């Protein structure tokens, strides 16, 4: 075998960088956790964590913040994945929110997301005393993400101060935090959506079937195709449930996640569709449609 002479390919460079970040967090923090949202980015991040520590298991648990409104397929996939990989999975739900009956239909996406996601996440981090949390966010997703550090510092109330971020040079990450403070670590910072799919394809990483097109029951609400995933979804006057060939580009709470009509029922077909895509992936998320700067506001409050 000859020595490799050419530069590392883009995917190999990204993979190595992510593994480096994941190991650094495991080595520097006393109680890290990996946020597992069950989506494709989480899937890639988990796959990289398995590689980073092989033959050991990743030395941290997975945490899923369950709003109780995730697609049923996601929950099945989550439990199967944790069992198959032999990892500890913590599922946290904001019980106050459940008691108050918070739901996306009556309270809207912004209140629901704040209470069942942002607040729930803070509760879980406080409850278990995690000093570092991995997230699968990428800098190419959204403008305020483009300036986020790989090790993103959060104060004791989980707030993010975009004007007071630690400089980050080379691959030297500052992991020092005082009691109560924490770091959100983003190993996929430099990946793009295309990189993610390309990696899933070449590494054959299992994904929730909802990414692949199938006939599913949907209603058209406010210009978005919302899947009727369970009986809690009540139809508004004039709405009819139709079976359509659809798939999802991102996954979240089913009442807030728009589907796209598609025939792409295999991974290569998805990539093909993506290469000729005319809309970016976040379009499917109701949460981002308010204001361009909405993400920055959410992140200051502790959203991932």
């Amino acid at each position, binding site marked *: *075998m000859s020595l*490799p002479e*050419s*530069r*590392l*390919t*883009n*995917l*190999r*460079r990204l*993979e*190595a960088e992510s*593994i*480096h970040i994941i*190991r*650094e967090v495991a*080595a520097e923090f006393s109680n890290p956790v990996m946020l597992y949202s069950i989506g494709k980015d989480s899937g890639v991040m988990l796959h990289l964590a398995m*590689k*980073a520590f*092989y*033959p050991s*298991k990743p030395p941290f648990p997975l945490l899923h913040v369950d709003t109780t409104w995730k697609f049923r397929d996601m929950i099945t996939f989550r439990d199967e994945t944790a069992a198959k990989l032999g990892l500890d999975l913590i599922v946290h739900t904001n019980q106050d929110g459940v008691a108050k009956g918070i739901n996306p239909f009556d309270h809207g996406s912004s209140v629901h997301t704040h209470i069942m996601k942002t607040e729930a996440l803070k509760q879980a981090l406080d409850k278990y005393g995690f000093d570092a949390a991995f997230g699968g966010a990428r*800098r*190419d997703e959204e403008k*305020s993400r*483009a*300036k986020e550090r790989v090790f993103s510092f959060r104060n004791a109330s989980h707030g993010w101060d*975009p*004007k007071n*971020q*630690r*400089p*980050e*040079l*080379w*691959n*030297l990450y*500052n992991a*020092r*935090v005082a009691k109560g403070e924490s770091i959100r670590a983003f190993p996929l910072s*430099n990946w*793009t959506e*295309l*990189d993610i*799919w*390309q990696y899933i*394809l070449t590494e054959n990483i299992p994904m929730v079937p909802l990414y692949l097109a199938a006939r599913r029951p949907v209603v058209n609400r406010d210009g978005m195709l919302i899947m009727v995933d369970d009986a809690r979804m009540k139809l508004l006057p004039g709405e009819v449930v139709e079976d359509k060939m659809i798939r999802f580009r991102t996954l979240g709470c089913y009442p807030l996640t728009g589907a796209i009509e598609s025939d792409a029922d*295999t991974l*290569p*077909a998805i*990539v*093909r569709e993506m*290469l000729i*895509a*005319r*809309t*970016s992936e976040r*379009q499917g998320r109701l949460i981002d449609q308010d204001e*361009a*700067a909405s993400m920055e506001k959410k992140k200051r409050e502790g959203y991932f």
Partner: protein
Amino acid sequence: MSGTERILSAEEAVTDYVLAQEAKDQLRFLTCGSVDDGKSTLIGRLLYDTKLIFEDQLATLEKDSRKHGTVGDEIDLALLVDGLEAEREQGITIDVAYRFFATDKRKFIVADTPGHEQYTRNMATGASTADLAVLLVDARQGLMVQTRRHAFIASLLGIRHVVLAVNKIDLVDYAKDRFDDIRTEFEQFANGFDFESLVAIPMSARFGDNVTVKSDRMPWYDGPALLEHLEAVEVGEHELDAPFRFPVQWVNRPNLDFRGYSGTIASGRVSVGDELVVAGPAKTSRVARIIAPEGNVSEARAGEAVTLTLADEIDISRGDLLASPADRPDVADQMAAHVIWMADEPMLPGRSYLLKIGAKTVTATVTEIKHKINVNTFEHMAGKTLDLNEIAFCNLATAAPVAFDPYEVNKATGSFILIDRLTNATVGAGLVWFALRRATNIHWQALDIDRQARADKLGQTPAVLWFTGLSGSGKSTIASIVEKKLHLEGRHTYTLDGDNVRHGLNKDLGFTDADRVENIRRVGEVARLMTDAGLITLVSFISPFRSERQMARELMGDGEFIEIFVDTPIEECKTRDPKGLYAKAERGEIKNFTGIDSPYEAPEYPEIHLNNVGRDPEDVADEVIGYLKDKGMIG
């Protein structure tokens, strides 16, 4: 249909395409320029023209352009990259933003860094991971002071490939003469830097001339468009040719049968069977297995994240550096390095910081600023402290020896960051120049009579009673009573008092922050020698900074340092004002007076917290004696 002429299905075609894309490499570059040179517009143009701006992003952009745009009714491409709300409203970029685009040949990661003088920090950050720098100049303005600064920082951070983007060429009527003048001037100026490639390109980011494709408005220009150059430039991998270096990041120990060392190969290559040495302890072994992300491999190279197992069981932990025995790194506790300061609070020589190099973190101090560098003129200047965005050539000392290479030879093993021990902020970045040998030649004199023997002879437990508080708080009064009481009990004591020491040992020091740090460092060292001699040492110093009190604490043995906070509010001190100093300070006759125009950082967790208002000093002193009795330090 014959097998060889089979028509590919659409799906197979995509799979083939994606697999072909896998061979793509990655180029990281940064763009830098002055405020109005059009950096953000250029990146916006690259994103726009490479068709990666999707329609909905475009719709948002059009909406935002009407609100914030600075180019009338046209789409303001800069808004694509100016991310945070505050900076969009100010119309300037204030932080490093990372952007992504790809062509069929390469994926690009762009660091967009601001051009203001006060943001040198951000440019250094972007430059630290970049393969290439695009320096923008406005064709109307030509080279600016900032252009020189950017070239210097790029060169200092080891960037070897530079593009001089002569932007807004449309505003000088696409004039060849103007472009040639700027290029020639830059080439002459950049001669002193060690750039491997330097390409000047005339362009208009706003109108897209020579950005992604060659413009027909400048037939006189026969070079490539920017994107053509970025796709083709060979940036090489110098770390591949350097000797093998592997900072151990994590010890992988799933069970007794497996012990692996995980990390990212900093430089060179490694094969199964290679001999490796642990830098420092100099223990050697051979590589038994290499586990890469794809599984077991027979060899690996710089940039890959792997796990190595060795043939012998040797003691290796996180922070150790594995190296090629034929070409070893330096191991020393003193080094000379360039330091870029990144914090509002100045760097003070003598103050202790955390230094993170590779996977190792040690405490370190800057022992001396050799010279500061004026980033605009490159002149060397004297300096006692280092302010935000300043660069200096310094000597540093670390608490334990560390392994490193000069940055010039190896970026990964020659770079470090400095972290403030109290705020945990990243306050500086360093580039190692060379090891200072003198550190290795001074060995501790081994003494036959040790500190224990001396303390036993005196029949006491040595300690440092460190009184801190504002001027006029009553430190010296209380310390003096405490010493008398100890003396009466037959204890051997000595008092170091701020005013007295400043007349002798420290008479060369003033009251600037840097001198205050040195003042405390010396007193801490003297107090240590006195505890070595077995004495109970009373130190009565304002000692306003937490860091220095922490430094003094760390000089002593466990439990030997007793911090006593003489807590008297400043209003009370001003009323007392035994030496009339507050009155002078308030008239401006004394500068840098603690509590007036220089801060006092109160102890957070002192061993003894003395409230000294309206109490008899005898009672207050008894509180200290009581503490020592409770701890069994005196009978």
